[in-house]
């Protein structure tokens, strides 16, 4: 109980702004000694966050069902083929998730124009900006353990921006285009999908090529997912700002108030 009595202000040379603040009674002296003032900024607006999680769910569905379309589950016989539609449902889930992802992606592109500047970051690489390349180098050094402290970033750090652009903007566009071309084969010649993507099929010639490319693309996205999740969790722990919760609340919280 004694621990919970508010300590006198300016103990140990530190101005304890929280000594009289509304900290609950479970705050200990140790807590008060280490409590820091943090700044935060609102970066990811609602459409961006919503898109992120819908997109994540869609991609997960697409990877699982896509793999199963390439290498189907062992055959099961629940009944006559007329009464069984297992593979059909797996394909349907793939197509449905693809539609969700595509619509979401278009919505996201719209928001790049309508939203704040952070909503635009994943769609381009500031290739000609010299100081940006300097930031890339700095962040690379941080990942190579050559620097003891990273910088503070509001949106994506420069390496993350490269990854977002390569894997999401380019990667997802590739998967959408090849995917819809394959879908056009199912809908048949003369369908809307064929009107849009038929020329691609004709250019490729044999669609086995498209299948294999689309399949490789899945692994490209899987590799991104691994890096993305690892980096997000690592940065949440080790960097100077919040990561995971930012994509939930939209608020980037900085752990320290230093200016450098």
């Amino acid at each position, binding site marked *: 109980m004694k621990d919970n009595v508010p300590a006198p202000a300016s103990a140990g040379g530190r101005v304890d702004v929280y000594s009289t603040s509304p900290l609950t009674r479970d705050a200990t002296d140790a807590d008060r000694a280490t409590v820091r003032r943090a700044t935060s900024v609102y970066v990811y607006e609602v459409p961006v966050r919503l898109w992120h999680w819908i997109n994540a769910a869609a991609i997960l569905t697409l990877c699982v069902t896509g793999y199963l379309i390439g290498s189907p589950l062992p*055959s099961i016989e629940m009944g006559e083929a007329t009464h069984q539609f297992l593979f059909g449902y797996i394909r349907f889930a793939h197509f449905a998730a693809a539609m969700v992802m595509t619509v979401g992606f278009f919505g996201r592109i719209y928001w790049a124009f309508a939203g704040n500047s952070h909503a635009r970051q994943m769609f381009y690489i500031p290739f000609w900006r010299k100081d940006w390349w300097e930031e890339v180098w700095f962040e690379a050094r941080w990942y190579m353990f050559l620097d003891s402290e990273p910088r503070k970033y509001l949106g994506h750090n420069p390496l993350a921006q490269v990854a977002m652009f390569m894997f999401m903007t380019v990667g997802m566009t590739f998967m959408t285009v090849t995917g819809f071309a394959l879908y056009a084969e199912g809908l048949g010649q003369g369908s809307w999908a064929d009107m849009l993507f038929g020329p691609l099929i004709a250019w490729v010639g044999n669609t086995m090529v498209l299948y294999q490319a689309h399949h490789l693309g899945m*692994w490209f996205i*899987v590799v991104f997912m691994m890096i993305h999740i690892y980096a997000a969790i690592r940065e949440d*722990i080790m960097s100077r700002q919040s990561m995971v919760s930012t994509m939930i609340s939209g608020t980037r919280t900085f752990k320290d108030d230093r200016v450098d």
Partner: protein
Amino acid sequence: MKYCSLTAAALGLGPAFVPKIAHAMETKPRTPVIWVHGLECTCCSESFIRSAHPLAKDVVLSMISLDYDDTLMAAAGHQAEAAMMDTIERYKGNYILAVEGNPPLAEDGMFCISGGKPFVEKLKTAAEHAKAVISWGACASYGCVQAAKPNPTQATPVHKVITDKPIIKVPGCPPIAEVMTGVITYMLTFDRLPELDRQGRPAMFYSQRIHDKCYRRPHFDAGQFVEEWDDDGARKGYCLYKMGCKGPTTYNACSTVRWNEGASFPIQSGHGCIGCSEDGFWDQGSFYDRVTDLTQFGVEANADQVGLAAAGVVGGGIAAHAAISALKQAQKKTQTKVSENEEA
């Protein structure tokens, strides 16, 4: 008349067209055809002469005037070559050039000599005054096995050599007999080329995949597959998708027109489609894999193996990176503690 109605049905025409086809066959002058053979195996001719509706003999004797075909004609040697030049002279701009096989372009075309000259020269001579060119089979349409990597003779499909004439591709190795004669019947009846798709194939025969009209398709949708040759599923006629069937990527009429008077087709006989009417079907990995080997990586590995290897490397890298990160973090904490203690 029976043939006329069958052909009308095959071409997707209504009964009203039956007399039209009959009329055309009875009254129209026979179209002169020059049929040349480049690098090929003659399986297209073999298929053609087995056509049942119409019978190949009816096509050759009453519909077209097969003025030159070095494997079928009675003449040989100089007389044969003279017949070809004669036809070209007499029917300038009115004859159809049917090409079986393709010209190899390497070494000035020396890998295929026909009538004492490189075949590519003969092809160009015959094509110059042709009304239209029919590319019979996978060889003429896409190159087939002689154009498979690394294509040492530089075998080249017809449309890449003859660029100024309408070309109808009738791919397949060989094409279905009734598809071959059906295309000719259409051209004779309507005096025009059949509607072609984006790749230049007659849409009436090549607009759908084997997969779209396959009688085993319900097993595909049900998820009932042949797992290995001669298993229970194979005996029950399950889908051959897992055995590498190329039906889902192959545009042809096999699953509807079938072969040998509609007797059967590869999938019906229990073997997957090998995609013989598709561009470069020899270079798409094994006929028996669904996820096929990619040659681009220099080793034999399919997309899953390549992807899994990449994911493994990245995963290992992440694990190592995470371990070092944890150590660094621990070190930093200890140092901060030490310095704080020193301060105090």
